[in-house]
């Protein structure tokens, strides 16, 4: 994926975070702890991609913090040689919000899963997104509960047979990208654990985004939900299943870009068509920076929840919006400007007072 979406954005907030003094390597970001995910878990690939990407970001590692909740993916911070907190189920966005809003010199990352972020912690996720706190949220979506050994999750397909749903799950799943766009997210992207190059590029764009960036990472749980994303990874099927979004480029996919996404003039909805010389000009050009979230949302709905056909990956939405931490900090500055720096004695002695002479 070429570097296109960030051309319009320069994240001034990143300048608040000290840069690394020397040259960093991937090794600098590996902690001394033994990684304890199941052999073959998709988390390994994501960890390697993140550790490999961090030197590119070039921030002082003591100013990087990973905060996680509970779940397999939430062990992530232990393996990063940065500051980190492995917190409690679902609450990482809230904890990270407190850290990010009080320390703008930190680059704060949240690592969470589909159960952590969308079930027990759903409330915190949507509120972090709407506030646009300067957080980078990596949502590992494996469509299953792994750590509790295989119950269905809020992203599992309907009818999922698991230990807790022997006759099939009944709940309609969340589409995390649709949810994030609906929650006013300013940056929403999707990527896949096994595509290191794509994953790294999405991470880079997320890191450079001022405000909350939500990155959904399709991640394979080879124990409890193996092959959940195989259709997006298998060379024969992926071309037809995956829609790679690139800002400023026509949305085409399939062998030789034979298919494209066009807008139905009657309904305004998006649909997949076979591209012909007649309709080629109608193929939608992806605009990640569109002010309106409508088209990004429509793109997120192209995927079939069961088969994952027509799954868009890449940056669906990336718009600039006031960042909560900045606004909070600005208010503090404005208060000092208006009232002067706080004077404790004056505050305590405010209001109606009287004096008793001894």
């Amino acid at each position: 994926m070429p570097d296109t979406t960030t051309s319009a954005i320069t994240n001034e907030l990143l300048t608040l975070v000290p840069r690394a003094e020397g040259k960093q390597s991937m090794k600098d970001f590996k902690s001394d702890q033994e990684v304890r995910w199941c052999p073959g878990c998709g988390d390994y690939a994501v960890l390697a991609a993140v550790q490999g990407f961090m030197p590119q970001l070039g921030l002082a590692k003591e100013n990087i913090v990973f905060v996680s909740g509970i779940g397999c993916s939430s062990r992530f911070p232990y393996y990063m040689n940065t500051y980190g907190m492995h917190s409690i189920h679902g609450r990482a966005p809230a904890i990270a919000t407190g850290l990010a809003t009080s320390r703008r010199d930190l680059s704060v990352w949240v690592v969470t899963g589909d159960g952590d972020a969308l079930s027990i912690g759903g409330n915190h996720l949507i509120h972090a997104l709407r506030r646009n706190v300067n957080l980078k949220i990596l949502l590992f979506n494996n469509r299953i509960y792994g750590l509790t050994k295989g119950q269905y999750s809020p992203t599992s397909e309907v009818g999922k047979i698991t230990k807790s749903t022997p006759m099939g799950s009944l709940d309609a799943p969340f589409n995390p990208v649709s949810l994030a766009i609906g929650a006013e997210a300013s940056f929403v992207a999707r990527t896949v654990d096994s595509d290191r190059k794509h994953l790294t590029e999405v991470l880079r764009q997320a890191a450079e985004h001022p405000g909350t960036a939500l990155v959904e990472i399709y991640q394979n749980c080879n124990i409890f939900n193996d092959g959940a994303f195989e259709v997006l990874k298998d060379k024969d099927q992926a071309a037809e299943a995956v829609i790679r979004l690139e800002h400023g480029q026509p949305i085409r996919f399939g062998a030789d870009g034979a298919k494209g996404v066009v807008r139905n003039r009657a309904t305004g909805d998006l649909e997949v068509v076979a591209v012909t010389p007649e309709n080629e000009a109608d193929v939608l050009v992806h605009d990640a920076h569109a002010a309106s979230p409508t088209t990004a949302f429509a793109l997120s709905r192209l995927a079939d929840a069961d088969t994952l056909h027509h799954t868009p990956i890449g940056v669906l939405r990336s718009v600039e919006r006031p960042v909560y931490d900045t606004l909070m900090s600005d208010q503090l500055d404005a208060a000092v400007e208006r009232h002067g720096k706080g004077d404790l004695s004056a505050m305590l002695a405010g209001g109606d007072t009287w004096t008793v002479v001894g």
Partner: protein
Amino acid sequence: MTSQVSSPAEQADEADDANENDRAVGEQRAERHILAREGTGEKEVRRLDRVIIRFAGDSGDGMQLTGDRFTSETASFGNDLSTLPNFPAEIRAPAGTLPGVSSFQLHFADHDILTPGDAPNVLVAMNPAALKANIGDVPRGADIIVNTDEFTKRPMAKVGYLTSPLEDGSLDAYQIHPVPLTTLTIEALKEFGLSRKEAERSKNMFALGLLSWMYHRPTESTERFLRAKFAKKPQIAEANVAAFRAGWNFGETTEDFAVSYEVAPAAAAFPAGTYRNISGNLALSYGLIAAGHQADLPLYLGSYPITPASDILHELSKHKNFGVRTFQAEDEIAAIGAALGAAFGGSLAVTTTSGPGVALKSETIGLAVSLELPLLVVAIQRGGPSTGLPTKTEQADLLQAMYGRNGEAPVPVVAPRTPADCFDAALDAARIALTYRTPVFLLSDGYLANGSEPWRIPETEELPDLRVQFATGPNHQLADGTEVFWPYKRDPGTLARPWAVPGTPGLEHRIGGIEKQDGTGNISYDPANHDFMVRTRQAKIDGIEVPDLEVDDPDGARTLVLGWGSTYGPITAAVRRLRKEPVPIAQAHLRHLNPFPRNLGEVLSRYDKVVVPEMNLGQLATMLRAKYLVDAHSYNQVNGMPFKAEQLATALKEAIDA
């Protein structure tokens, strides 16, 4: 109530109450001097040593504001005072109904007092509902000022008055002052060109003016307040000032009010200093800001609105120029989560809530115990369980604060005893949190939160030094000589672990809720290590330095009354009554519920009987029995209201005699 200091006058003066309250109120007004201003044609002025006034009206009548203003006037006049606001949870309950009645009781005196008073000497009843809801608390002979305009058929019928209580003789035992407050207010505001409805709204200021005349209150501060409050609506401001003055003038001219009263400043009760009136929640807010200042750390509040704690969120939000960050979260859990995140980043972190919110925060408090980060959990208790009585007071969350978590998760508990004491208690809670790197409960309640009293404003030099040292470098040497940083290597004195904030090079580390290996902080499932860590966390809390319990026992009594939190005022008033009789009784009051003062066991063992009055079903008593095997005798009231001194005195007497 000047609790932060104890003056010699305390012992003697409250004793007056003992006898006074046994008598009817008419008698109680044993005027010490009569200042008849002969030959001047002016009205008679009598001097009283103390007065209890209760303003009562509809929720929309502005009774809380009226009470607040009278309190401010009284404070600036220099009386000692104590207040009890009492209002429904509904913002505007149906007008004229009993559930919609809002009241404000104020006790003020020329001497040191401890409670808002058991029974009002004066009731201001703005409507029939206010009369009906409060008459049961008013002793015979008391003055009742009623707004006669509201005593028409429909409002009276609404609360079940079939005949007018003003005419059917049912109030003959009281001094009734019928005043057409609404009519007089509208008349007084004729020239302002306001609608009837607009003009009528100033009737509380008319009532305030009348009461201010009756008790010789200074009026400048109220006029100043009104002009500031309605700065954007000068016409409304002037109308309110006019109503206020009209009320004053009405008292001065009408014959129904033949006497006015003076209550001299309580000069002897107050040590030298500058004073202001302060509510518990305001004092607590100031205490938090002062703690941040003294610790030289930015203050961070994560909070979700909940009665009766929201005032602290409001107050702290006003002080951003102190670098105070306030974050109104999406829920209680996020509120404490954000606070804990800020604590990790090196802020003095606070979350404020009440009982139901504490329940929601429990898991995160447990995380804070495990992370060993400083965090203040301010819980303003209210009636429970569940939603309970949101605007009423209770002490029934002590055991929740102590034990309401999974696993062995000890948390220190600090409880203020009076509204002004909330300031010192906040500083003390911050001291413990910062020194021992632990979450701390600051357990106040609705009575302290909303009640107020005079407070001697401290000089900043008097405040404790709360500065902390962040970790800056390695703290451990491995066998091979390598210098490393161990996040769980403890200070041998306090058992506190180092506070290494992100941004410190070389100290990168990971912490979490999973059990950690002693020292390194790495994940550990080792059985012996877990046992050690559980015991070490407990030992850290048990080892917190708290002052010894002081016992007030001038007569060598055999019975000790032991309280905690907001019962201090009523218990102390009751003790004074008993000693006046004289019945010897010893008194002690706990600020630290966890850990208890070191000498508590020894103190308890000195007495034949230990009586523990609580606004719950015996939670402290349960803790005392469990820890000290003492037969603590519980005296309990869980009706949403503070104890009355007289009732407590009787109960204590019975316990002593039993």
